[in-house]
């Protein structure tokens, strides 16, 4: 069993479609400086650094070397991880593992991406097997459209259900000064936006953004000393599944189902809908905000549309999801899942500003990527 670990500081850039004022290293420095300020630490307090992005989004293959000044990593142990969309939660998990191991007291975890520097869809297409699925099925939008299309047929979910999720997340972003896309949007606006790939429309889908996020993890002893109200890590779970898109179970989301089941077991959660006060979920498309609710055990398979229509996950609902505006409002890919962790930590710490949910004791955050992989973390106000 590892040491208990708390999050003691979070920083993020002001994200945008194009941050032409700042290079990738400058984005990293902006997030790191803000995280240090948030925790009231200096770089001298940091014992190890974890950093992650997707190499082929910027064609920079050694960020662990090239960004040493922005990271503050000179003569410190640096560990680079890169796992596609889940990079942010992998960076978070890795920061947590480092601190929990007892080998490092205070660990800085950084995710970043400068998606404006290349063709994101072309780069994402390189994730698919080049001699099998890349030509007929690659990219981000098509596969997500395919899975929701099947869910609609199986359970009677509608395009309006996903549009409702899109309007919820996009309007939540109005309360988040860091979000890239902040626009008041109605369900009709979403339904009337251009069709990208049936049933996914323009306003259903995430953008690509430039930005970075930094989260500081500390072991129990240090966290208590350095931070008045740490967000304690109750568990961190990762699940990967099959090799090919064709292998996937499209009616539900197996890695999310298995990762959350294991996380709830570890954290002693028996009724997630009741026990969580807030969730920051990696929903790359509003359709996932419908279908994947089943796989988080909030309801039985096919039960999600009913909850969505009831407003269960709205800011004033039973379990607010994505007060930050979520991934469809802001998506610097290597940082995206770490932003979920950072936002959830801020909710616990009471630092979430205008998007604060009152009195948060338990928060759920997830990462999604690759061939439908899941990284997941549960944070709490009380020690695990």
């Amino acid at each position, binding site marked *: 069993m590892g040491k208990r670990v708390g999050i003691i500081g979070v920083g993020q850039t002001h994200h945008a479609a*194009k*941050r*032409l*004022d*700042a*290079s*990738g*290293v*400058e984005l990293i*420095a902006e997030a790191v400086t803000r995280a240090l300020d948030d925790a009231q630490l*200096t*770089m001298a307090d940091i014992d190890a650094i974890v950093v992650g992005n997707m190499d*082929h989004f*910027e*064609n920079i293959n050694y960020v662990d070397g090239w960004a*040493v*000044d*922005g990271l*503050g990593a*000179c003569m410190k142990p640096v560990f680079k991880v890169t796992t596609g969309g889940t990079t942010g939660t992998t960076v978070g998990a890795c920061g947590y593992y480092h601190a929990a191991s007892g080998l490092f007291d205070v660990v800085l975890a950084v995710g970043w991406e*400068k998606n*404006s*520097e*290349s*063709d994101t869809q*072309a*780069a994402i*297409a*390189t994730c698919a097997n*080049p*001699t099998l699925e890349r030509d007929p099925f690659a990219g981000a939008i098509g596969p997500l459209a395919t899975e929701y299309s099947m869910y609609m047929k199986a359970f009677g979910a509608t395009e309006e259900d996903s549009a409702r999720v899109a309007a919820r997340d996009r309007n939540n972003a109005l309360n988040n000064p860091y979000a890239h896309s902040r626009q008041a949007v109605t369900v009709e606006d979403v339904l009337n936006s251009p069709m990208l790939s049936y049933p996914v429309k323009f306003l259903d889908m995430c953008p690509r953004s430039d930005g970075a996020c930094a989260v500081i993890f500390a072991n129990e002893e240090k966290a208590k000393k350095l931070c008045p109200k740490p967000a304690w890590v109750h568990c961190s779970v990762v699940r990967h599944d099959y090799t090919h898109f064709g292998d996937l179970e499209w009616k539900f989301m197996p890695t999310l189902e298995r990762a959350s089941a294991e996380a709830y077991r570890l954290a002693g959660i028996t009724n997630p809908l009741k026990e969580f006060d807030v969730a920051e979920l990696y929903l790359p498309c509003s359709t996932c905000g419908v279908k994947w609710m089943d796989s988080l055990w909030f309801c039985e398979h096919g039960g999600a549309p009913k909850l969505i229509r009831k407003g269960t996950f709205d800011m004033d609902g039973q379990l607010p999801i994505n007060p930050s505006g979520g991934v469809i409002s802001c998506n610097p890919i290597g940082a995206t899942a770490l932003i979920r962790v950072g936002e959830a930590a801020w909710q616990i710490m009471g630092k979430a500003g205008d998007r604060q949910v009152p009195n948060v004791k338990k928060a759920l955050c997830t990462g999604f990527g690759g061939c439908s992989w899941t990284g997941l973390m549960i944070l709490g106000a009380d020690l695990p």
Partner: protein
Amino acid sequence: MPSWKDDVEVLVDEGKISVPYSWTVGSTLSRFYCELRDNGKIWGNRCPSCGKVFVPPKIKCIDCYEDLRDWVMLPGTGTVETYTVVRYQEPVLHPRKAPFVYGVIKLDGADTGMVHFIGGVDPEEVKVGMRVEAVIEGEREGNILDIKHFRPIK
């Protein structure tokens, strides 16, 4: 060992993906390149805490993690710390044809070295410790090639 060629008919898929990248220079290096482009001058930035001068400029001090807001103009002269004579051709990426010389030049007033071409001299004549000066291009675009090369000070 049996030959696999008897059992496998080899097929190779040719890739078609060519991703055009473009990189934001950033606020720190922009200033460096604008000074170079507009005034033909080489600037560095200094750490307010330890006083170290970085050329090319850095985002943060490597040792202190301080913002480097103090800018200093350098005279453009320096000393060759090490070099090599490149004799192979790299046909796609490299802007110079072999043979050419590049190395590390420690500029006067800087605490870090800068890599660049050493020209205006026979490759055989280049020596470690040689005093050099920057040759600035007449037509400048705001990139590292606005410095043509460093040549020996006569």
